[in-house]
């Protein structure tokens, strides 16, 4: 083949390639445009999820506060009742003692002794101890519920972190789209309001003590090193 014929063949191939590429590029542009349109909605939805979970968590914490307060009041009332009962019992026993001294009839004395026996051995203390133990255990359970709600803060950090990544992708896609359509490089669009918030995207909700143990070791080593320096 002559060089001229060779060039013509190459040109034909290039033209054919361009014919195939142009619709493909148009399809890519359309896809980017469509995806980019949805991104602000996605970040907005994530933001709404964050707000809703925080609001719900605060409502739960409010309820826990109310329940804890009511439980404390109930516990105080029971304690007052217990004290009053103990005082009454002491008074009854004292009066029975006085009465016993004044009586001579054996059947009446037996009756008094029976009543004394009832009041002396009646184990209300065990009942109240159990009741207080239930109160304390319930309080601990309320605290455990409150502590478990730390999951909201931790997952929120992950959500905000993902939102920030989506924002960055959006900015780059929007810039690429602009360059595609206008052939000039456009500066990146402004960051979403959440993007400047520093979050820990690696935040973990775990009950494993491993991370705390590692922190404790470092703190201890640091403190020992400081002591040696002094």
């Amino acid at each position, binding site marked *: 083949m002559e060089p001229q014929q060779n060039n013509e063949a190459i040109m034909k191939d290039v033209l054919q390639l361009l014919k195939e590429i142009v619709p493909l590029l148009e399809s890519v542009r359309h896809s980017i445009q469509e995806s980019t349109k949805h991104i602000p909605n996605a970040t907005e939805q994530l933001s709404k999820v964050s707000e809703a979970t*925080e609001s719900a*968590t*605060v409502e739960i*914490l409010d309820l*826990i*506060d109310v329940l804890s307060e009511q439980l404390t009041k109930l516990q105080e009332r029971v304690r007052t009742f217990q004290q009053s009962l103990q005082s009454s019992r002491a008074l009854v026993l004292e009066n029975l003692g006085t009465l016993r001294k004044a009586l001579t009839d054996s059947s009446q004395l037996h009756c008094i002794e029976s009543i004394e026996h009832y009041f002396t051995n009646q184990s209300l203390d065990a009942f109240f101890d159990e009741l207080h133990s239930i109160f304390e255990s319930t*309080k601990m359970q309320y*605290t455990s519920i*409150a*502590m*478990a*709600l*730390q*999951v*909201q*803060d*931790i997952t*929120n*950090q992950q959500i905000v972190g993902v939102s920030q990544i989506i924002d960055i992708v959006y900015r780059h896609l929007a810039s690429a789209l602009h360059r595609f359509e206008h052939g000039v490089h456009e500066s990146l669009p402004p960051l979403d309001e959440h993007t*400047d*918030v*520093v*979050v*820990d995207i*690696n*935040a*973990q*909700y*775990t*009950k494993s003590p491993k*991370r*705390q143990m*590692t*922190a*404790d070791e*470092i*703190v201890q080593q*640091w403190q020992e090193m400081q002591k040696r320096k002094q």
Partner: protein
Amino acid sequence: MEIKFLIVDDSLTMRRIVINALKTLGYESIVEASDGKEAIMKLMTEGANFVITDWNMPEMNGLELTRWIRSTPQFENVPILMVTTRGNKDDVIEAMKARVNNYIVKPFTPQGLKEKIEQILKTVGVG
């Protein structure tokens, strides 16, 4: 001397949880702030002798707040407990360099919080 805590966290949930835990432990005197700048304002106006702070916060983070406290003669001895999700070794070292007194990785337990507060009070007392 009564301990007055300043709780600094941008998350309302976390502030409520820390306050709840402190009340369970019998501490009642508590003020709160949502970032480092507000914490400084609260320290200046309402005072506090024990700071519990998060790390990641807008405006001024917990590490910057710690540095400010340590460089301000009026508050330099105030104990600081960092409570954060950041559990990497480098993070803990950076916080210790900034001179926090102790470090808790979230999620925490009331028992863990109690231990750290008591450790600090035993070694440095209140500020």
